[in-house]
């Protein structure tokens, strides 16, 4: 598997995606960003019905198609070939973004370059030196979806923290992130800042705090002040589906 932390800490990409997937309630309309968020579709429990929206004009997006069914005119927002499930609908771009901007999408899960403790998100530009800025639908999604969740590795490839007191890169939206699923922790963005909900196995609060660029609020500690590390196999969601 690619992208495994060099220190072998925490959750894998699939486990991060599964952590987020377990928190998506049945009946939700969900938009998944490119990268690790795309893996979430593979981890929705069988007893939940979740409908995936892709902003290029499809509600009811299915899995990657078999090669003989692959169609260059049936693609997802990442421009990869996809499929349509029973009950799917095609529509034009203004309708697609009416679904987003109009508040009809329940959950949008995106990747991040940086998240600030006040919920600001930076995920579209590396700043003034960006050789080719490209925004796509990210600003519309964060302005319109009911809930914005982030799935990202806790640090950049260079080891710098992505969770910060303030974003230093150009922002995508202000105060919009609700939850963050990283390889090291699951975090809720509250009015007081980053609140730890769950800690990955084989790590510690101290180590994760070291790797975070803002204070982590710890309200899920047990009587001894220790966070109970759970393995994914016995994990239950800190947010119960409605």
């Amino acid at each position, binding site marked *: 598997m690619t992208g495994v932390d060099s220190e072998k800490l925490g959750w894998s990409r699939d486990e991060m995606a599964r952590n987020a997937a377990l928190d998506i309630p049945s009946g939700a309309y969900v938009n998944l960003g490119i990268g690790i968020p795309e893996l979430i579709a593979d981890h929705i429990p069988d007893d939940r019905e979740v409908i995936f929206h892709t902003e290029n*004009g499809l509600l009811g997006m299915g899995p990657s198609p078999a090669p003989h069914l692959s169609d260059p005119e*049936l*693609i997802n927002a990442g421009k990869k070939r996809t499929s349509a499930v029973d009950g799917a609908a095609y529509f034009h771009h203004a309708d697609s973004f009416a679904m987003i901007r109009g508040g009809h999408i329940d959950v949008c899960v995106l990747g991040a370059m940086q998240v600030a403790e006040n919920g600001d998100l930076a995920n579209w530009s590396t700043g003034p030196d960006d050789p*080719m800025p*490209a925004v796509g*639908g990210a600003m*519309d999604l964060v*302005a319109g979806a009911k809930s914005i969740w982030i799935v990202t590795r806790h640090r950049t490839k260079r080891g710098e923290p992505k969770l910060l007191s303030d974003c230093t890169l150009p922002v995508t939206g202000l105060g919009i992130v609700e939850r963050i699923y990283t390889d090291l922790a699951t975090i809720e963005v509250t009015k007081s800042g980053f609140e730890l909900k769950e800690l990955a196995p084989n790590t510690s609060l101290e180590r994760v705090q070291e790797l975070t660029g803002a204070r982590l609020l710890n309200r899920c500690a047990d009587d001894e002040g220790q966070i109970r590390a759970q393995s994914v196999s016995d994990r239950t969601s800190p947010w119960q589906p409605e």
Partner: protein
Amino acid sequence: MINKYCSSLNDAVADVFDGATLMVGGFGEAGSPIELIHALIDQGAKNLTVVSNNTGSGNVGLAALIANGQVSKMICSFPRTANSTVFPRKYSEGKIELELVPQGTLAERIRAGGAGIPAIYSPAGVGTILAEGKETREFGGRTYLLETAIKADFTLIKARIADRYGNLQYNKTARNFGPIMATAANKTIAQAAQFSKVKCLDPEAIVTPGIFVERVVEVFDPLVESDLVSAGATYP
């Protein structure tokens, strides 16, 4: 008698003039009217402002139009995609202008342009560098950006089937910007993989009504951009 059928690609794009604003349908390769774009390369109109979500890939279609020096400005949401090298290179050399627009705002500015609405208020991009210089207004305690409508002289789009009235249906996610771009241009030129064998399409199943379409040219079995890019094809 109304008949939107046009017999050749060259005739279909013959009146595109230098300096025109041109909308080009498509999201990546899906819905990109590649044969119409190639006809426009043959036709040679220059100094075009092109409105399209992306900037093409490889050296065919929209990327080839840009490579041929016919485009002076792009209005788009995502100019860098896999296999798109032509636009990023011209942009880094300062040879082409870019107006970067959030994708939903781009769609709604086009929809507004086609609907006779001069501007819209959008929440997308508030507080970002893309909001710089834009007028804002609060509604219900939330800030919105004033975004002006986009209209065009010509729109080039790709449909699956058309009838002689110019009514169109699309194919899957190749619909994307087609229906809204069709409304926002003085002249919308569609390529369709098929002319309806019956006189007209089912009125209940029409996606773009013919009033928005100036002419339709049949392109049976259209080129597949990703196949051309994989093969290293170049146009012309």
